[in-house]
Each structure stands twice: as structure tokens, then as C-alpha cells.
């Protein structure tokens, strides 16, 4: 495999071109599909395979910026971006990021670097596992409800009872939208007729605080926040989040480059893989239903949380190999998830083509 190695002049290391391209491709697919940057996959992988950590972060953010241009364009073409909500999310979260960064400074002074590291890592683990667990729970609750509704469809009495039961429970986005706190705003693309500006601001501000506090891109926080707190349809949340990632990563890439921590050649190679992957990932959102996206996303972030737990155990157990295992776990999960997304895309595409050729009107919209 040495013939595929190239010299990267800024990081001053030899690196495998195929690995860069494949990594870029996988993260491009997942980024376009889930609406996240994917830094939590790229950074540990580059680091495991020999990139110094600071170069891994800088190169990763530059590459993410490039692929998010492509993903945003595709989602824009599919009508998946709520531009107004995107702008709200960027402005509110930028303020939140600054507060999160200041909180880090304060905790660093109070508890020292090691204490801070531990606080951040465990907060990250808690957040990932909570988010993943909640999304998984929500998925199975909805699936159960759908199957029960199907079963009761023939029994009008049962249907009537379930309707009454459903009325008692008002969804969180609706409850939040019912809070009349001036000024009210609307987001047509997301189907939100009226919501308080302050509700939207607080949601993205808190997401921004977490983003600044945990030092992550924030896509995996904002995407579920849009779905579960604002009631934004999944594909719109994915597209809008990518627009957010695009704007914020432009600055990230530039500032890391000024600090000399971007390996441009590696970023360009990964970009080509990522752009190619983003085409598939973004297009797959057209064929896979919202709840399917949420299920895969939930599994992916639980695996990511698990990998951070393994990494956290490295020091107390004095087992350096756990660091590598945690990285390989994330890479393995990313490759597996990419394969599932591509498989779903191919299957759905052929089912659609088949139904179009068969002229079966009932099949429209069932793919």
C-alpha cells in the first residue's frame, strides 16, 4: 500500500491517499444524510492514522467546509433548507458559542486542565447517549403507535378511544409554539406558522453554548433540537443544519489555516471523496423517510458516545490500546452506516423506478 502514500508538506508526514479519499467519502455520505459536519468521525480517524491532533482538527474543519458547500446546494435544490430559520440558528448559536467558550475558560481556571477535560468529556458522553437514547425511544414509540393504529383501523370504537387519548397529550413543539411571547415569527418552509422569537433564540442559544462548551461543530445538537423542540420536518432540519455548518465552518477553516494547522493537500483529497459522498448522502434524504433518518442517526451517536466512554477509560485502566479501539469503533460504525445509507438509496431508487415503469398509481409516495 506504500505506493498510495504521499508526502504532506505542512503536516510533514506520509499518508495514504486511498484512506483519505474513503474517509472523505464516508463522512460526505453521512454529512449529507444526517445534516452534520462529521468532525467527530474525521478528527479521531486522522489522529489514529498519524495526524497530529491540531492538524487533524484544522484539516477536518477545512474539508467539512468544502463538502457542506456541495451538500447545501443539493439540499437547496431539493427544497430542504429553511433559509430564515438557518439565519436565526446561526446568529443565536454564535452568541451561545461565545458563552460556552467563556464557561470553558472559567472551569479551566477553577478545576485545572485535567478537571476540565474530565468535565467536558463526561458532558459529551451524557449528551450523546441521552440524545441517541431519546431518539431511539421516540422511534420505537412512533413505530408501536403506527402498528397499533393499523391494527385498530377496522375497529371504529378503538379508533375513537385512541383519538381521545392522543388529544390529551400535546407534543412539545406545539406547546412551545403556543407560548405567546412577543415578537412572534413564522417559518413557512418548516411549516411553523407562529412561534415566539425568544423560544427560537433560547433553543439555538443553548445549542450554541453546548457547541462552544464541548468544542464540537454542533450539527448533532441542532438537528434534533429543530425536530423535537421546534417541530421542523426531519429533511428540512437536515438541510437547514447543513447551511449552518457551511457558514460556521468557513470561519473555522480560515482561522485554523492562519494558525498553520491546515494540511491543504489532505483537505483537498478528502474534499473530492466528501463531495462525491455528499451527492449520495443528500440525495438519499429524498428516498428515506424522516423516521428512518432519525433511527440511523440515533444509532450513530450512541456508538460515538460509546467510543468516547472507551477513550475515557484509557487512563484509569492504563490501557493505551483503548484509544485506538475507540477510534476504530467510530470508523467502523461510519463505514457500516455509509453502507446502509447507500444500500437504502439503491433499493429505494430501484423500487421507485419499478413502480414508475409498472404505472401503479397506488405506489406513488410509498417508497
Amino acid at each position, binding site marked *: 500500500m506504500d505506493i498510495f502514500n504521499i*508526502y504532506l*508538506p*505542512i503536516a*510533514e508526514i506520509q499518508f495514504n491517499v486511498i484512506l483519505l479519499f474513503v474517509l472523505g467519502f464516508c463522512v460526505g455520505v453521512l454529512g449529507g444524510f444526517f445534516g452534520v459536519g462529521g468532525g467527530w468521525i474525521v478528527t479521531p480517524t486522522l489522529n489514529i492514522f498519524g495526524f497530529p491532533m491540531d492538524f487533524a482538527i484544522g484539516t477536518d474543519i*477545512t*474539508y467539512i*467546509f*468544502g*463538502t457542506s*458547500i*456541495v451538500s447545501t*446546494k*443539493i439540499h437547496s*435544490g*431539493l*427544497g430542504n433548507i429553511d*433559509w430564515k430559520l438557518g*439565519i436565526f440558528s*446561526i*446568529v443565536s448559536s*454564535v*452568541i451561545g*458559542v*461565545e458563552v460556552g*467558550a*467563556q464557561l470553558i*475558560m472559567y472551569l479551566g481556571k477553577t478545576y485545572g486542565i485535567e478537571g476540565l477535560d474530565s468535565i467536558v468529556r463526561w458532558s459529551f458522553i451524557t449528551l450523546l447517549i441521552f440524545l441517541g437514547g431519546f431518539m431511539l425511544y421516540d422511534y420505537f414509540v412512533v413505530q408501536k403507535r403506527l402498528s397499533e393504529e393499523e391494527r385498530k383501523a377496522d375497529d371504529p370504537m378503538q379508533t375513537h378511544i385512541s383519538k381521545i387519548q392522543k388529544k390529551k397529550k400535546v407534543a412539545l413543539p406545539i406547546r412551545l409554539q403556543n407560548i405567546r411571547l412577543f415578537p412572534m415569527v413564522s417559518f413557512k418552509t418548516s*411549516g411553523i406558522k407562529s412561534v415566539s422569537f425568544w423560544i427560537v433564540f433560547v433553543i439555538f442559544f443553548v445549542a450554541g453554548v453546548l457547541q462552544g462548551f464541548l468544542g464540537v461543530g454542533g450539527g448533532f445538537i441542532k438537528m434534533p433540537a429543530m425536530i423535537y423542540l421546534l417541530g421542523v*420536518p*426531519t*429533511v*428540512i432540519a437536515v438541510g437547514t443544519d447543513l447551511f449552518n455548518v457551511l*457558514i*460556521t465552518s*468557513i*470561519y473555522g*477553516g*480560515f*482561522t485554523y*489555516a*492562519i*494558525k*498553520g494547522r*491546515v494540511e*491543504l*493537500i489532505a*483537505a*483537498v483529497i478528502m*474534499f*473530492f471523496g466528501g*463531495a462525491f459522498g455528499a*451527492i449520495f448522502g443528500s*440525495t438519499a*434524504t*429524498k428516498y428515506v*423517510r*424522516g*423516521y428512518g433518518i432519525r433511527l440511523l442517526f440515533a444509532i450513530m451517536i450512541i456508538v460515538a458516545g460509546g467510543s468516547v466512554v472507551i477513550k475515557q477509560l484509557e487512563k484509569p485502566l492504563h490501557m493505551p490500546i483503548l484509544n485506538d479501539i475507540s477510534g476504530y469503533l467510530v470508523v467502523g460504525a461510519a463505514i457500516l452506516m455509509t453502507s446502509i445509507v447507500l444500500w437504502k438509496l439503491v433499493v429505494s431508487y430501484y423500487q421507485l423506478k419499478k413502480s414508475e415503469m409498472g404505472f401503479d398509481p397506488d405506489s406513488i409516495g410509498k417508497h
Partner: protein
Amino acid sequence: MFKKLISRCLLLLCFLAANTGNLFAEGKPATELNKTVKVEGLTGLNLFLAQTYNSNRLLFAVISTGVIVILGVIVTYIVSLFIKPAGHTHKEE
């Protein structure tokens, strides 16, 4: 046109917000930032990048960001030629 204008304004806002943050940041001394890379034995693009990196970090940042933007725009243009916008799908859940 409006979307472009908004995007540019947001970019500017991000720059301003993040630079304000730098005033409060307590980062490590700039010695690490002055890292230089070896240029001996390098040729072509590698030599150009290494020399720019060593001599002018701002230019290096502009080149890095610019290259990715240009590539992003080119790929996006090519993609838009091959993939037709398919309209709204599956917005309801």
C-alpha cells in the same frame, strides 16, 4: 441575490463574533504558531505551499480557504448539471 447578501452578512457576523472572542481568549503563547516546515527536497506544489506557509501565514489561509471555495463551487456546478432539483419530497412525517 437576497440569499447571497444574507450569507455574506452572516459570514461577516461570524468573523466579528469570533474575533471578539479572541480578545477574551487565553490561548498559549504564539511560539507554536510560528512553526516552520522543511522545504528541502520539495518540488512543485509542495514547495509552493511550504514556502507560502513559512513566509506568509495569512496568504496561506487565503489560499487554503480560496481553493476549497473554488473547488466547492466547481463541483456544485457540475453536480447541478447532472442532478435536477427534484422538488419537495417527504416533508410530512
